[in-house]
Every structure is written in C-alpha cells, then in structure tokens.
C-alpha cells in the first residue's frame, strides 16, 4: 500500500514522521511511504496522514486520517494494527 504523510513544509515533520511510520509498519505491513506538503499529494495513494487541527486534507480515493501527534511511534503502531484488522477480514 502507499502511505503519504503531509505536513506544512513537507520536508521536516513529515520526513521524520515517515521514518517513524516505516518503523511502526516494519514486518507488519508492506508499504511505500512518501511525504510532502498537503498541496502535493499524489494520486496513487491509499492512506494519507496529517496533523489534527491542520487544514483538512481531501482526496478522491485514499483514506484520509488526522493523527493527534505526527511524531508518535505509538500512534502509528496503533494505526497499523487498526489498518491490518480492517483489511485482513
């Protein structure tokens, strides 16, 4: 699956978040993680994450989720579990 993490500047918080998400999903989900600004979301993406409270993101096909902490490994772990539960059934 393709995951996109969006942040304001597109090269600091989301870049760090992408590392954390990769760590949280390692061995659980096989995914390609990209990051950048909210304006540059690619078409081919299944899940978009962004900071709760920021400008809401919209996308025609992907699942869009806001997270409480863009830099929380714990939150990503829960998210990965949730995603797997949902898509394994």
């Amino acid at each position, binding site marked *: 699956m393709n995951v996109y993490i969006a942040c304001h*500047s*597109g*090269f*600091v*918080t989301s*870049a*760090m978040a992408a*590392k*954390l998400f990769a760590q949280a999903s390692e061995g659980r989900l096989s995914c390609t993680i990209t990051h950048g600004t909210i304006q540059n979301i690619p078409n081919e993406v299944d899940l978009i994450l962004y900071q709760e409270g920021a400008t809401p993101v919209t996308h025609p096909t992907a699942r869009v989720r806001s997270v409480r*902490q863009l830099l929380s490994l714990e939150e990503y772990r829960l998210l990965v579990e949730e995603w797997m539960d949902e898509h394994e059934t």
Partner: protein
Amino acid sequence: MRHEWTARERSILLHLLATETSTPLAEIAQAVNLSERTIQRERQLLEGILKEFELELAWQRGHGLSLVGKPAAKQQLREDLILSAEAIPTSEDRLFELAWRLLFENDTLKLQAVAKQMHVSPSTLTQDLEKLDRWFEEYHLEVERKKGVGARVLGYESEKRKLLINALLAHWDTLAFYRFVRGEDDYIPAFLKTVPCEEMLEGLRDGYDYLKSRAFERMDDRTIMRVTFAYGVQQERLASGFFLEMYTKGRSEDYLKVATDMEEALGITYSMAERVWFAEEANRLRSIKDQMKEDEEERWIMQIRVHKLIHHVSLIYGFTFTDDTALERGLLAHILSSMNTQALPETSTVKPHIDRDYPGLRSAIQQAADIVFGTNTFSEEETVFWAMHFAAALVKPVRRREYRALVICSAGLGSSKMLVNRVRQEFPEMQDVVNSSLFGLEQHRLEEYDVILSTVPLPPLSVPTLIVNPLLTSEEVQRVRHLLLSLPQSFQTLATKPRSTMLDFAELGELVETFERMDDQFDLVTLNNTDRLEDILLDIGTHLEERDLVQSGIQLSAQLLRRHEVAGLGVPGTKLALFHGRHASIEKASVFAFDLTTSIPLLMMDQSTEPVTRLLVLLAPEEARDIELQFLSAISGSLIESEEHMRLYSTGTKEDLRLLLHECMKKMIHETLYEK
C-alpha cells in the same frame, strides 16, 4: 431442453461461455474454486451432455478448454443454465456442508469418505479445509488433521454452536425461513439438504411456533430467527450427543424464565448448563454491549451474503466478478452503511446510463438479490447503486496477470509507436509495453519480457514472438490473447521493471552540484544570545541575509517565529530544535546550525518544554527543486534514525555535522545510481 445442472457444471460452463478462446485449467479452477483434477473429471461428464446442445467441449493440451459451437447454441446453453433451479449448492454451500459435517462428527471425520459423499476430489476438500481454518479461528476453534485418519474440530461447544447459528443466519433469508416454518420444505439452505439435521428442522418449527406467540421486547424478524436457530441448533446438538461444558455463571430465575417457559411449553428438560445457554441466547439483545457484538456478527453475516450476491450475479450476468476483492469490499461497505441511512441520493440520472451501457446488469443484480436476500428486501434505488459497483468492476482493466511486451519494427519509430498504442488499448493488463528497433534489440534483456510483437520477421529468439500488422487487427488481438493465456506461469513471475543500465549524467551532475553548494554554505555559528527567542531568530535572519541566502532577515525571523508558535520545534530528549521554513523570501535551499551560549526553554514537538542549546535551520525557497527538498527531508529523517545520530546532531562539532550531511548525500547518490 432442461437439464438438472449441478452448481459445479454450471459455474464451469458459465465461465467458459464468458471467454471466447481456450482457457487453461488452472484459470478455470481458480475462478470456480475447484481443483484442476475435479475439472478434468467434470470435463468428461460434460462432453456427453453438451452434445444435446450441439456444442463441443474442446480440450487442447497446454491450452485448456473451450466451448465450440454456433452462437445460438451457446445462447441456448446459457439460458438453460440460468433457468435451472436456483437452490443448487454453490462452492460456498460446500464449505458450510463440510463445516457442518465436521462439527457433527463424534470422532474423526474421514475425509476420503466425505469427499466421495460430497462428490468432490480429496484435494478440493483439502483446499476447503484451509478456508475453514480461517473461519473457525474467529470462533477459537481448530481443525485438527491426522494424516491418513481424518479431521476433527477442537474447541468449546458454545463456540461451535455460535458458529452454526451464524452460518444459518447467513444462509437463510427471512422470507425463505418464514416459508419453511409455514411448512414448505423446499425453503431450506442448499447445504442442509445433504446433511442429517432432522432434529434441528423439527426444533425450528416447534421453536418458532412457540416464540412467535411470545411478546418479547424488541423481537424483530432477525431476533426471532436467531433465537429459533439457537433452539434448533441446541436440539440437534443434544440429539447428536454434544453437551455443553459446565456453566459457572449464576443467573437469576427471572433471567432464566425464557428458557424454563420454553421447557414447559415444549415438554423438554434442560440441564442447568443448557438452560443458562438458551436464556443467554434469548436475552442477548438486551444489553448494549451484546448489541454491539451482534453488530459485528451481522457484519460477518453480511459479508457472506455479499459474497453470495457476487457469485449469483456472476452466474446470471455471465461475467466472473468473484475474484474482485475490491468489489466485495465496496459493496459490503455500501450495504452496511445504507442499512443505517434513511434517505438514499437520487438515482434517476444514473439509471438510464447504466441500463444503456450495461444491459441486463441491473436485472441480474435484482435476480441475485432476490435469491440471496429475499424478494424486495432492497429497493430498486439501492440496486442501482450496486449496479454502479459492478459496472466499475467491469470497466476496470483485467489485472489478474501482468505482462510485459516488447514491440519491434525496423526503424523503431512510426509503426512501432502505433503498435504500442494499439497494444495498450487492447491489453490493459500489459504492465509494460516497450518499443524498439530491430537493431536496438540487443540492448534489451529479452528474459524480462513475456512476449515480443514485431512488424518485421525476427531471428529465432528465446521469448514467444508474433509477427503482426502495426494496426493490430482484431484477429491479431485474438492471437495475442491466445498466446498470453498459454504462457507458462514462470514467465510472469520475473522481476518487474526493465532496468536501464545507462548513467543519468544530468541527474548526477545536478546532485553533485547541489550538494557541493550546500556543503560549502553549511556552517556552525555560535550566537551570543539573550533569552528572548525573537532576538535569537532576528540574529539568525541577519546572519543568513548577509550570506545572501535570504532576501530579508526580518521576514525570515518572523516566519520562523510563527512556525514555532504553531507547533513546537524542539526534538524531545535532546537540546536541539529544528527550525525550518519554505518561503518566497528564501533564495537558496540551505542547512545551518546555531549554538546558543545560554540555553533557552522551548516548546518541543511533543508539546513539552525543555532547554535548547542548538538550533538546526533547514530552509527551502518556494520554488525549491525536488533534489533540494529530498535532501532536507533526508536530514530530518536521519536525525531520528538512531540515538547516536540524535546525539551528534544536538552536540556534535561542525565536522560531525558535515559528516552526517555527507552520509545523507551519499545515500541519495547511491539511490540514483542503483535504484532507478
């Protein structure tokens, strides 16, 4: 001419009717959920029957099966298949039949004997058992296999009963159940017709007669069915010698009343464990928690019904929708959400389009819905939405297998381009269509392609090759498809993209130039600071303005301050903060570090406050190039890569920091060299 078709015959033939060319056995087996050996056996049986329809079942080794005959004869067969009895068992039914047989076996179920009884090969049964594993797991049940002996189910009796009740709920729609309890014996699910379950069927009628007259609170149709199924299953289990384990839970007399009343009315005597179990089943909808659990089970039941719906639509419409998981998920989500919605959006505008573009689809869906959910359970509006899901699956390119084709013409220009476009148009499943001239052939690794299409004669090659017209006529399309279908599996599992072995000098040059500039500019500066962040940022702005990296130091400092106020920038657990910005006033992408002589308290990324002694500043202009943004991202990522990196970024010397930046640069160069 009417023939009593079995479900297996029906699905094999409908699958063959939907494809014009020969279909490999493996593909049919996968589509209709049977083993290849079973299909081979069916083939011999079908040959005789098909003669009556003036059709022939052609078998070509290496190519597979095809139906040969006049279009009118095929139409006749299709109609006969569709009109044949609806209640014939499907592969799903077979699965439930096997589950039922396993759960009602006192000892070990002998698989050889069961395969014979169910008219399937042992390997089909083995495949079914694997599917059952996943299903049983949800009920904490385990199918234990003993080689040469058979299989049996391990787990709690209460869970086994729960599974049986849910299986009945999934397969028995309300109307059919109503007809059954009113005395019409035909209306039982297909899988129950072949297993012994007289006690249960009798129990269902007795139980229903009693329950329907009882005014329980909130007893809707599904609830009455559930409680009736609980009673029926219980009777069958008890008659077959399966008793409940001890119940430790104590229940009040009031709670048990529903069971004791039933015992009295129907003249039965429960053990305490059985009484508690039945009362729990009858009372389970009273608490919110149980209702939620119920919702989960409903979802599962709906999933099976959606599966069945797709199966029936495939049979009636004559197109295999069954292996499209996206369709199944989409429909399930739609049906579940529409069950909780009162008003549906207007469909009158879409309806004519669907009927025009996909004639017969809506009527197929309606028929299938009537079979699976009972007549008129869902409105016409609702089925219009379903039709949109099915139509979407129809227009989706077939991506079951992906192929790579190399297209060749003598010059590699005009005609091969045309051919490439034609191939893309006709074969959406082509993952890669690459064109080449005849002389350029040597530069391609032929083993990375599944097929070569050429407009000119070619020397003998290791890859299957076809000579075609650049316009790719419809006859040639058929030939190519034929060839693709006959390709052995191994051709399709090679590594994916053909890799270019050439260096991209332009890209490498741009990388090196960017890195060199950023490395030159990088500096670690010590600021003799006050404790006001505004002053510190202004100092930084001025400093960068002097180095021609930003147009206005004041503007930059204001922007960095605002960014800090939006969310903390400190990295928790370090004495480092990551100030960054992308702004029109920034001239060049750059990295800088500033050490503070006096630490200041700053908001961290986790919203805590900690003292900070170093600010790492990452800047990008509004129109930054991808390479620059990638590099800045790489630095951000490398910061949290390890404890060691965090330590170096927050306390390392200028040389340490440069080394870290160089590490990021090397990684990017490496990726450009090897991974593109």
